[in-house]
């Protein structure tokens, strides 16, 4: 049993992260290898829709080649119909084929849009973990309001637990995207977007910004670590009080433009920081001293 004291927690956390990175070195195939219900549903829709459309398009492409070849000028066996330019039956069919296909796909689109609406909470037995996301120039800040900690360029989540995101941007538009988890969503200054995702199994997944945001944009990669729930709780508990606090001064420091930022942890966060960022009020109050013996919400006792 590893000690739950501060230094033991740090080592434990580092070991977890290292192991997760090793797992991730196997090449990942993005949205084709979803790890959660959202990404899985989206992949299914994509494959089904592609199959439906290929069923129409492949015969059309073959017909194009076939007809062009058969009716080539040199082919005396083909019938030349120089005045044939209309057929009601054919018109009905050529309007019907695309129309029926689109009706089918339209139904899929309607149902899919509602089922997979990003702001819709995911069904689940465990209560959702709340994460607040802020895109800065040019890194990602993840605030855990219930745990009282924050991370930069590293998102740690409990596996099998829905994660409920509120997102904003401190400067320009970005787009929060973890391909293997599914849906992306824009982050926009002075506005809050909502997203719900879940990683079903532990692992390490790549994250990025998928909306160009300036010169430091390529450096906005981040890692998502999905840990078993108990380990997540221990990680969160152990992170409290570590490192610098994310108060007014800490946030001002973080806001300075930088890119390819190494993952960081803030052991304390000014309360209401996310809402202050949305309202364009930089926080000025220092962070209240964390109380180490209070259990972290969401962890098992």
């Amino acid at each position, binding site marked *: 049993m590893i000690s739950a004291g501060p230094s033991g927690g740090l080592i434990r956390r580092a070991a977890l992260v290292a192991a997760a990175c090793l797992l991730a070195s196997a090449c990942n195939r993005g949205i084709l290898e979803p790890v959660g219900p959202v990404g899985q549903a989206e992949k299914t829709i994509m494959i089904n829709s592609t199959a439906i459309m290929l069923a129409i398009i492949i015969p059309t492409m073959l017909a194009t080649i076939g007809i062009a070849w058969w009716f080539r000028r040199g082919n005396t066996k083909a019938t030349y119909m120089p005045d044939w330019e209309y057929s009601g039956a054919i018109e009905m069919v050529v*309007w019907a084929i695309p129309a029926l296909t689109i009706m089918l796909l339209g139904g899929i*689109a309607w149902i899919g849009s509602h089922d997979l609406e990003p702001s819709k909470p995911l069904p689940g037995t465990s209560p959702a973990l709340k994460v607040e996301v802020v895109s800065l120039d040019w890194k990602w800040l993840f605030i855990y309001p219930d745990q009282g900690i924050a991370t930069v360029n590293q998102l740690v989540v409990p596996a099998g637990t829905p994660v409920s995101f509120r997102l904003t941007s401190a400067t320009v*538009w970005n*787009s929060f995207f973890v391909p293997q988890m599914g849906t*992306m969503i824009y982050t926009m200054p002075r506005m809050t977007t909502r997203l719900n995702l879940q990683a079903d199994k532990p692992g390490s997944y790549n994250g990025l910004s998928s909306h160009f*945001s300036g010169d430091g944009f390529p450096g906005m990669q981040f890692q998502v670590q999905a840990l078993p729930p108990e380990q997540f709780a221990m990680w969160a508990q152990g992170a409290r009080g570590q490192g610098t606090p994310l108060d007014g001064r800490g946030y001002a420091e973080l806001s300075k433009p930088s890119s390819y930022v190494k993952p960081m942890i803030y052991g304390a966060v000014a309360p209401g920081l996310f809402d202050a960022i949305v309202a364009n009020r930089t926080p000025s109050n220092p962070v209240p001293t964390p109380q180490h013996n209070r259990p972290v919400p969401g962890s098992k006792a």
Partner: protein
Amino acid sequence: MFGKLTWSAIPFDQPIPLITSIVMLLVIAAVAVWVWRNGWWPHIWNEYITSTDHKHIGIMYIVLALVMLVRGFADAIMMRAQQSLAVGASQGYLPPEHYNQIFSAHGTIMIFFMAMPIVIGMMNFVVPLQLGVRDVAFPTMNNVSFWLTASGALLVNVSLFVGEFARTGWLGFPPLSEKAFSPGVGVDYYLVALQISGVGTVLTAVNFVTTILKTRAPGMSYLRMPVFCWTALASNLIMLAAFPVLTVALAELMLDRYLGFHFFTNDGGGNSMLYMNLIWVWGHPEVYILVLPAFGIYSEVASTFSGKPLFGYRSMVFATLAICIISYMVWLHHFFTMGAGADINAVFGIASMIIGIPTGVKIYNWLFTMYGGRVRFTVPMYYLIGFMLTFVVGGLTGVLLAIPPVDFVVHNSLFLVAHFHQVIIGGVVFAVMAGYTYWFPKAFGFTLDERLGKAVFWCWFIGFHLAFMPLYVLGFWGATRRMQHIPDPTWQPWLNVAFVGAVIIGLGIVLTVVQLLYSIKTRDQRRDVTGDPWDGRTLEWLTLSPPPHYNFAVLPDVHGEEAYWTRKQTAIKQDQLIEEPDYQPIEMPVNSPTGIIVAFFASLCGFAIIWYIWWLAILGLIGAFAVFVWYAWRDEHEHIIPVEEVRANARERRRIRMEHLHELSQST
């Protein structure tokens, strides 16, 4: 005195733009001197620069577009090279500040100064001929439109060696494009260049809608117009209604940047989502401006080279107008991931799919045009078939993107990039290459070399697929667009294949130039003697190649669809031409330097605004206004072509036609 402009604006410390600029200036100077030494400047001034002849204005548009194609392609191959090199530890050879300008310039140039001019150029050349009239409704305004477009292109190119270009992508979304995050002149170059050329585009739209609806040959009712004219009408209607929205979006951004307004800023209550909506309300119809005339070209090519009328003419017309209208109802599919909610996303997604229906109908109608025909595999036909195979896949990926939950995972990815290049290259570029080959003999009196033309086709077809199929895969793997550095080394082989594809496309572009030069050198072997080298079906093939300035000695009477075809078949059957009509003197508009002078002042004013040189901007405005007034004061609007000249030209045409009457048929 000179606003923000200082010597530091010239990129002495950046080798790539510096050397490129020097080379470009040297090439321009060399060409200018070569033209002068050959004594061609007067001819170019009279026949082209000040021309009010739609044919010559069309040629100028196409030349501008081809030059800008080289510039835009150079940007593309630089991007491909960077993405192949900048993997893992390597940062490649282009730092982000530079790479970001390159992809922004690539998109801006390809859409606004390559695709738009080349499509507008084709419509300029062909539409009045197909309508059986002498010119567009407003010939001088046509000239002005061209020069305003050229002025925009000029400013974009000037940004290469004076200052910098925008680093915000080709649409310049705020807040990134606001002063706070893009303080340099780059975004201003972008905004000013587009506003100036946007005026030209709206004037073109007014011109062509008026021409098509109000000036056609006697007897040519709407349902007797060639399909290319219908698609030109639809395209120009979209231009007329969409470009003012772009003007507003860009103007509001300019007001934010120059006067501190708060349309899209992060403070003061600004709303950056408003820009997204405005720009895409323009942006989606814009792509239909490009693709509808492309569809029109395919209709002409399909029927001519199958030796049959176009299948389902009325269906095609209806489909064209349906696309025209629905194109205004889909714009939100460009930002499904902005969080508008399920209902709104779903409605726009379904609307976006609905536009696939008339498009699908067109594909089938072209298929049935070939069915029962006698297909000749000329270069334009290659492009038609290449298009039909390529575009439908682009349509498939488009419908996929129209499904919001799918878009949620591929939005802004390389999958998206592959999709829109597929439909633009497969749709617009192939059509333009087909149209270029098809109408070249009409413009210049000789056909292009076939073998080289087919080689160009294969370079484009193979090159396109190599360059973009890997991008679909990478998009699935989580690769997003506009990346100066590639995070995952396993992507590199695919990016290398894409680079090879780009090189092959480059080879195709080089071969296009080679084909042109070789065809000019050997033109006597491929003279278009009769004016109808392809056994055509529409009125432009009635004239000799190139046609006289006034196109037709007497405006042709049109009875029934495919007026020229019926007339030709009757003449062949009866072995004689129609009765010689009465010739009259013909009034044609005079040339005018208004266009180039207005564009000069517009460029001056634009440059001044970009660099905050206010006295020069005001001077430019005053100059432009003065030119208007000076133009309005002229008394000579037209010159008369004497009836003897008309009669002599017409009789020569009739003599040649009679002599070669039976050679015109190629389907039997």
